[in-house]
C-alpha cells in the first residue's frame, strides 16, 4: 500500500508544480494584457483630448493661449476619476496647460525620452507607480507643436493583477484537491490489481526471509498458506540451490559430505 500512496503523492506533486507554473505565467500574461489595455484606453483618451488643441494649433493659436483649455482638460479628466493629471506641453516639454494646480514646469524626463523614440506615434510607458500616455498635437502642415500627456496611477492595474493572481491561486487549490481525489480513484482503478499483486509478492518475500531466519535459528518455519505458494516454493528451491552451490564452492568443505 505504501507504493500506492507514494505514486499518488508523486502525481499530486506534479499537478501542483504544473498548476503553479500555469498560475505564474497566466498572471504575467494578464499583467501584460492589462498594461496594454490601459495604455490603449489612455491613448484613445489622449487622442480625444488632443483633438481641440489640434484644431487650435491648425488655426495658429499657441497652445498656451487657448482660453477654455482648463475646461477641455478637466472634461477629459472626468472621464476617469483615477486620472492623476493631464498636461498639454510644447515641443520642449514645457507644460503650458494642465489640470494640476499649480502645474509642474515640464513633463518627466522619461516621457521626453519616450517621445523622442516614438516619432509621431502615440506612446505609453510605465514609470514607477504611474502610467504615462501621450499623443502629439499637430498644426497645419503636419507640424508638431507639442502634445497631450495623461498621468494615470498603476495602483489600480496592480490591484487587478493581484486579484487575478489570487483568483487563479484559488482555482488552482480547488483543481489540485479535485485532481488529488480523482487521481486517488483512478490509480486505484487502473493499478489496484498490480499494487495488490506487488504487495502479496512483497509479503511473500518478507515471510520467506523471516522463515529462513527462523530455520537458521533452529526454530520451526512458518506455515504459509497463500496465493503465493508457488512463489514460496520457487524461493525455497532457489535458496536450496544457492546453499548447495555455496557448499560446492566452499574450499574447506568436507569431502565425505
Amino acid at each position, binding site marked *: 500500500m505504501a507504493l500506492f500512496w507514494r505514486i499518488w503523492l508523486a502525481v499530486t506533486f506534479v499537478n501542483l508544480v504544473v498548476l503553479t507554473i500555469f498560475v505564474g505565467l497566466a498572471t504575467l500574461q494578464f499583467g501584460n494584457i492589462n498594461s496594454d489595455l490601459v495604455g490603449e484606453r489612455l491613448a484613445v483618451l489622449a487622442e480625444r483630448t488632443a*483633438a*481641440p*488643441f*489640434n*484644431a*487650435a494649433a*491648425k*488655426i*495658429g*493659436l499657441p497652445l*498656451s*493661449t*487657448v*482660453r*477654455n483649455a482648463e475646461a*477641455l482638460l478637466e472634461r477629459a479628466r472626468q472621464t476617469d476619476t483615477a486620472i492623476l493629471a493631464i498636461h498639454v506641453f510644447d515641443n520642449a516639454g514645457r507644460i503650458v496647460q494642465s489640470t494640476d494646480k499649480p502645474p509642474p514646469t515640464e513633463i518627466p524626463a522619461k516621457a521626453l525620452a519616450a517621445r523622442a523614440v516614438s516619432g509621431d506615434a502615440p506612446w505609453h510607458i510605465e514609470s514607477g507607480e504611474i502610467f504615462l500616455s501621450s499623443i502629439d498635437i499637430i498644426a*497645419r502642415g503636419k507640424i508638431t507643436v507639442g502634445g497631450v500627456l495623461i498621468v494615470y496611477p498603476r495602483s489600480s492595474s496592480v490591484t487587478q493583477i493581484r486579484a487575478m493572481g489570487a483568483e487563479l491561486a484559488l482555482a488552482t487549490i480547488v483543481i489540485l484537491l479535485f485532481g488529488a481525489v480523482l487521481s486517488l480513484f483512478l490509480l486505484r482503478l487502473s493499478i489496484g490489481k498490480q499494487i495488490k499483486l506487488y504487495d502479496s509478492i512483497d509479503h511473500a518475500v518478507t515471510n520467506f526471509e523471516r522463515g529462513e531466519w527462523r530455520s537458521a535459528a533452529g526454530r520451526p518455519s512458518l506455515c504459509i498458506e497463500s496465493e503465493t505458494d508457488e512463489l514460496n516454493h520457487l524461493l525455497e528451491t532457489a535458496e536450496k540451490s544457492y546453499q548447495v552451490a555455496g557448499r560446492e564452492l566452499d574450499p574447506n568443505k568436507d569431502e565425505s559430505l
Partner: protein
Amino acid sequence: MFKSFTVAIVLLACLSSSANATQYKIMIATWRGCEEACQGFQDYLVEHGVDTQFIMRDAQKKSAPLPSFLAEAREKKVDLILTWGTSVTRGIAGTLADLNNQELNHDIPNVFMIVADPVGAGIVKSLDHTGRPNLTGTYNRVPEETIIETIRSYLPDFKRLGLLYNTDEKNSVLKRDEVADLTGPMSFELVALELPLDTNGKPHVDDIATKISELKEAEVDFIYLGSSSFLRDNKDAFTVAAVNNGIPVLSPYENLVHESQALISVAARYYDVGRLAGQQAEKILIGKIAPGDLPVLRMTDFAVVINMGVAKKLKLFPPMDLLQMAETVN
C-alpha cells in the same frame, strides 16, 4: 528705553498708514463709454488694493474733446491716463511722429488698450520697445493669419474674403492693408469695400447694407470685420445684413457673436484685456517702473466662439474639430 521703542513703533505705524493712504488719480478716456475692458481695468486695481480715484471721460465717438481731456489730466495732476482704442490713444498720446508736439501727452504715464495695431498706427515703435518714455499698453489681437486659418477651418473651400472699412479710422485702413498683404501667401482673394464718408467725414449706417449687398454680388465666401469701431457700434446693421445675404461674418470682437449675429469670433475677452491693462498700471504706480521700460503686454487667452443660431440660419454648421475647441452660443 521702552518709551523710545514705543514711540518708534507708533511713528513707523503712522508712516506706514500714510504710505498706504496714497490715492492715485487715473483718468480713463474712452471712445464710446465704459464697457467691459474699462470695467476689467478698474476691477483689477480694486482687487489688488490699489487705492485709486477714477476720473471717467468719454469722447462719445468724437476726437474733438480729446485735447480737453489731456488738459484736465494735467490740471488735476493725474498719475496715469488709460486710453481706450486707437482714436483716443492717437488723440491723447499722439504717434511717434508727434514726439515734439507738446499738445500731446509725453509727460503723464499713459497705458493704452484695445488698439488694433499700435505699431502700424505709429503709436509705438514695437511691442517689445515702445520707444515712448511715458507710454505702454496691451495688445489683444490674434495674428491675421489665424483669422484666415479659422475661416479656412470652418469653410475649407474658402476663396474670397469680403471686408468693409472706413477711412476715418486709421486702424480700419491698417487692418485692410494687413489682410491684403496676406492674399498672396495664403492664397485667397480680398474684396475690400470702403464705406463712404458724409460731409462730416463719418460713415453712415445706411450704407452698411448696401455694401454688404455689393460683397454678395462679388461672391465673397466670408466677411471679416477687420477693425472698425463704427462697424462694431453698428453691429446689428452689419451682421444682420450679412446673414440676410447668406454670408457668414468673422468678428475680432467677441460680443458681436454673443450679442449680435456674427457667426464666429477669434478673440480675447475685453474684460480680460482691461485686467491686463490694470497689470500695466499697477507696475507703473506701485512698482514705480517707467512706462517706456514696459513692453506692450500681449493677451494670452483667446477663444473661438461660434453662434450656433446663426450657423443654423446660414445652414453652415461648424466642422467637428473646430467645434471641439470652440465655445458656442445660441
